[in-house]
């Protein structure tokens, strides 16, 4: 069972990664100029109030001590309370992260649904009109900043045509999907452009390979050749790229969530950084690091399944 052993090794590798990210985040946020009490109280704060609040938060202690308390709490599953919102960090993450997951998940799905068929069309018509049109269109999508694409989509499809709501979030699952369509589309446009370019090139490479000629010579049907031989082999590098893009997608979600007024984890992170809300920054970093590590793990597993040589 080389695959199971491979998965086990990969999971073990994730642990030091997460621990390292945790230590770095913990120290970095404390090295940033400014402290939670000043950020919270603003320009008018008087020294006595700042000291009182920082002492209450335990921030007057040396950083190693703070880290000790923090690690101890993390192992008991306690990520502390948000300084600004005064709510448990776990609760905040449980509330906001699913929104971001749904947004990025939807974006990834839309991106795949656009990229896979279109790259086939483009690759098989290499240099022809469909290829040029598809590549040209995606090039535009790739070169426009996310917030701009978002605003254009909002103005056209929400404000003018009224097909979709102007940002915000839904009241139930279906309503959420409806609200998330435009923002997911915004994120999907740039991702699918990246995927498409890669997949198109891979398909062109594979189509010319000897084993595809051989399959054809055996008299296999075109559909079988395409799915079993071409797509499977062409996908290997695209899967890696797709996995790596999830991190970028989460980064893009920060901007998208602001433009579309979506209460997701990205916006929470930005607000926490501006507010020097250490517990929220730390908690979210752990959650996001776990998430990205998990995605990489999945990517590796899929890759190992597509290409058994990887697991050896």
């Amino acid at each position, binding site marked *: 069972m080389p695959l199971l052993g491979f998965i086990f090794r990969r999971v073990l590798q994730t642990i030091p990664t997460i621990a390292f990210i945790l230590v770095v985040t913990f120290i970095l946020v404390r090295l*940033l*100029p*400014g*402290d939670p009490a*000043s*950020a*919270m*109280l*603003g*320009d*008018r*704060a*008087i*020294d006595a*109030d*700042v000291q*009182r609040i920082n002492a209450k938060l335990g921030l007057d202690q040396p950083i190693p001590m703070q880290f000790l308390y923090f690690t101890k709490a993390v192992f008991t599953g306690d990520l502390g309370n948000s300084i*600004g*919102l*005064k*709510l448990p960090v776990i609760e*905040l993450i449980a*509330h*906001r992260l699913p929104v971001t997951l749904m947004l990025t998940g939807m974006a990834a799905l839309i991106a795949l649904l656009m990229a896979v068929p279109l790259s086939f069309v483009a690759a098989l018509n290499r240099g022809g009109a469909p290829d040029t049109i598809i590549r040209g269109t995606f090039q535009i999508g790739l070169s426009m900043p996310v917030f701009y694409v978002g*605003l254009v989509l*909002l*103005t056209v499809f*929400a*404000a003018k045509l*009224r097909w979709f*709501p*102007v*940002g*915000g*979030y839904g009241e139930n699952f279906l309503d959420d999907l409806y609200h998330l369509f435009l923002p997911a589309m915004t994120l999907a446009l740039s991702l699918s452009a990246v995927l498409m370019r890669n997949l198109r090139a891979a398909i062109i490479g594979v189509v010319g390979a000897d084993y595809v000629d051989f399959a054809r010579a055996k008299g296999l049907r075109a559909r079988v050749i395409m799915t079993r031989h071409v797509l499977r082999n062409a996908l290997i590098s695209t899967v890696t790229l797709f996995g790596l893009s999830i991190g970028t997608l989460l980064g893009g979600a920060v901007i998208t969530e*602001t*433009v*579309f*007024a979506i*209460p997701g984890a990205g*916006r*929470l992170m930005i*607000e926490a*950084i*501006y*507010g*020097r809300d250490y517990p929220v920054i730390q908690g979210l970093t752990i959650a996001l690091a776990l998430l990205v590590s998990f995605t990489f793990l999945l990517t590796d597993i899929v890759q190992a399944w597509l290409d058994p040589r990887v697991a050896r």
Partner: protein
Amino acid sequence: MNMLVKAALSAALLVGTSYGALAVERGGTLKYGRYADSLFLDPVLNDANVDIWVLSNLYDTLILPTDDGKGLKPGLATDWKVSDDGLTVTLTLRDGIKFSDGSPITPADVQWSLKRAADPKKGIWGFLVGSIQDVSTEGDHTVIIKLKNTDPAILAALTVFNTAILPMKAFEASEGTTDEEKAKSFSAHPISSGPFVLQSWDHGQSMKLTRNENYWAKGEDGKPLPYLDGIDFEVIPDDATRILKLQSGEIDGAEFIPYARVDELKHADGIDMKLYPSTRVQYITMNVRPKIGDKDNPLSNEKVRQAMNYATNKEAIIQVVTHGVGSQMTSFMSSATPLHKGDKPLYPYDLDKAKQLMKDAGFENGFQTSLLVLAGNQDEIGIATALQQMWGQIGIKLDLQQVDNPSRTQQYRDGTFTMREAAWTDDIADPNEIASYFVYSPTIGALHSGWKSDEADKLFEASQKEIDAAKRADQYAKMQDIYNSSGPIVPLYETPYPVALSKKVQGFVQIPLGNNIFGAAWLQK
């Protein structure tokens, strides 16, 4: 259609709308787009405008501010009297007032709420009622406040959010051992004394308020306020999205409209672009210590500061940054602040005078200095680049340092900044708050600038106890003269609050202190 018919039609329309404005309509939920969500809705323990500016819809104070933000009108108290010696305030509570759960609002609730507000260990607003020594009750309707010293601003302080009345028993019975823990659990299921009650709160997304069925105030139709069934606050951080949502009819109001969009929205269909008078002033704070770090600081020279003030073309900045929405400052405090003095813009643009002052100060060839700018903030970047060019003309080379807010606050508080941009709004209808921060050095060292005037400090201390209105006005006039001529700031402009409303929205007001008052707002069907 000929001209006559058109004229008749528009006249009929005009009459129609003005009649419409008279007949109040009840019901409906007003959807209001905010740039950021509230954090903690406790009147005493909050510390941000996002909380302060909505609190008055949930909790009433004994006295209420008038819509112009300067006067007083009865709230939970119908009558108040300050004794001749100025050391006692006697308030009479309104008959039959109730909290949203139907329980009566008693003098004991008032006593407890005021004492909590005045406790310096609770929250950061205690200084506004720092003169309160003790609060006692008498019978069912009377509350007596004893003062440590005479306090000319005590009545204005009783209109401020931190003196709002909360139900003592329910608060004390809330889960938790400390005041903060209790406040946390109480504010999750609060009981209101104001026109609305918190119904639900989805942090970062929306906050829903419903009408308080037990609210005391009556509307124009003789029935209890509020007119609305409820308010939905939606958090929409992006300016452009907030405006699009208003234009598509998904919300009825949007706050903090960027100045660049004000003119466009004034001419947009179905939108009522409001510019509510405010106490907001925008200025540059200068560090005037003789040395910053180990470097000599030219800004410590009063003539240099005056030169920079004269070299600043405020009208140009108002046009570029606020698109003409702002106006020039006539004192360091806004013209909407009580006891404001000044009818001419400060330091009218005069390049020759500025050059002469630089020469007199011994800086004919200028110097190099720096300004902290809030990263990503278009207004601040606009002001900074304008100043860079304007001050360049008197030989000052200005480095712009973009930083985020906490980093800036740190340098500011440490006194290591050179110059920064800043804005201020009053929280109380009295000049004592702004003067204590800007002028009076013991508070925060005159905006952490290191500036100090013994005379101004003495004037401020005297004015804090002066109950003769004319004498106090005179003290404030002198304080403003001193600060405006030698102070550590470059006044830039004052701006109103730009709020865009759907034409259906009536009776809403944002008062100069920033409070959004929905109590008498209604929706035209």
